[in-house]
């Protein structure tokens, strides 16, 4: 059974703080993803990684960075949190390759920036 865990379910941070969101998967998946989920906008891809130390920008990377030092762990970093980054953040992982591989999602972290 695939397990994707995220370090926090709820976070409250102040504007300008540096924020770290951690994601760990236990299925030896090469691919890992960070999305943000907003009502009416669905899920939007922030960054993804297809291997250790490899990363690619998604559709909305501005204001975010990522780190993948180990295969099982993918971190999302908000260098200087802003109120428009208040959102639900979802991490996912999958096997590599082409086509119809299922993505497995974590429970999400609801981040509030005040």
């Amino acid at each position: 059974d695939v397990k994707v865990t995220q370090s926090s379910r709820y976070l409250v941070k102040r504007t300008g703080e540096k924020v770290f969101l951690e994601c760990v998967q236990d299925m030896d998946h090469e691919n890992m993803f960070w999305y943000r989920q907003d009502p009416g906008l669905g899920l939007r891809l922030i960054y993804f990684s297809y291997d250790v130390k490899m990363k690619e920008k998604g559709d909305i990377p501005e204001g975010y960075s990522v780190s993948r030092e180990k295969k099982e762990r993918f971190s999302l970093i908000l260098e200087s949190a802003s109120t428009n980054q208040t959102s639900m953040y979802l991490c996912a992982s999958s096997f590599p390759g082409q086509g119809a591989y299922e993505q497995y999602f974590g429970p999400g972290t609801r981040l509030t920036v005040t």
Partner: protein
Amino acid sequence: AQRVTQPEKLLSVFKGAPVELKCNYSYSGSPELFWYVQYSRQRLQLLLRHISRESIKGFTADLNKGETSFHLKKPFAQEEDSAMYYCALSLAAGNKLTFGGGTRVLVKP
């Protein structure tokens, strides 16, 4: 760039009635299409994918390349189908997903 559109934000139906969630996509190639579902207080999970041509929990979805649509259907909705549903597209050459805005389904008793 590829795009996925779910025109209905909310669908409210009575138990036992048919339900159809619309999904349209824009992409000129051969995408892979998925439906993901998120039940209350649960994580997002795969419901079905077009390549499998399967029926899951009574739901089916047919890929219509001519109309660029992948509508999700169930002939008799159940209360446990109340959830948030997302249509998603993956390019054949990659593994990233592009999601639609989501449709909330409410099945009333």
